[in-house]
């Protein structure tokens, strides 16, 4: 075991807490962690983060299901629909990828974040 392995465990712990708290948004932390911290290429970082998220999501997801905070029906249709998109998206990422795809994704996230901010402000506190 090397120091890099220890760093991976600590980074994993941090990304795991975020995943448990905010769902896939937390999983996105794995990618910059791997590119900046471990010098991985963007593609390897994405592939590795996807592999790492599987057991992470099982544990976090199971805990959420026990807490009854999961909308199982919605999970099935977004997850099921996402499978098709995931294969197409992964093929695009592996074979065409490049900065353009990352930039489009970034723009999409920024737009979504503004919509979420607006909604967070306009909506009253729910119990």
């Amino acid at each position, binding site marked *: 075991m090397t120091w890099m*392995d220890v760093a991976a465990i600590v980074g994993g712990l941090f990304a795991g807490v975020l995943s*448990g708290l905010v769902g896939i948004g937390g999983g996105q932390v794995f990618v910059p962690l791997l590119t900046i911290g471990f010098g991985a290429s963007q593609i390897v970082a994405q592939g590795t983060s996807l*592999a790492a998220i599987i057991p992470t999501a*099982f544990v976090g997801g199971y805990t959420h299901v026990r*807490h009854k905070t999961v909308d199982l029906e919605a999970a099935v249709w977004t997850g099921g629909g996402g499978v098709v998109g995931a294969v197409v998206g992964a093929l695009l990422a592996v074979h065409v990828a490049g900065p353009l795809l990352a930039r489009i994704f970034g723009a999409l996230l920024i737009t979504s974040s503004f919509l979420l901010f607006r909604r967070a402000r306009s909506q009253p506190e729910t119990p």
Partner: protein
Amino acid sequence: MIPLLVLWAHVDQRRANATSLVAIIPIAIAAVPVYYFTKGSPQVDLRVALFLVIGSVVGAYLGARLLKSVPDRPLRYGVAALMLLVGVKQLVFP
């Protein structure tokens, strides 16, 4: 996926976060083989993934427990802020 759930399906933030984590399971399972098999060399670093997982499964359990006690409004701002941060990073340093 979270914006989809919160903005269109009107799921509250807590449920959206938890649901997205469950929904990512089939998605990640479908995507990993594409990264592993469809290029000359596997685009997955299994060794790093293994050590990440050792930390992240513990983290995921703690995070999931923590979610129960965080109120909805700070959670909504937190998610939006995280999304903005990752989005800006992707846009500026793709």
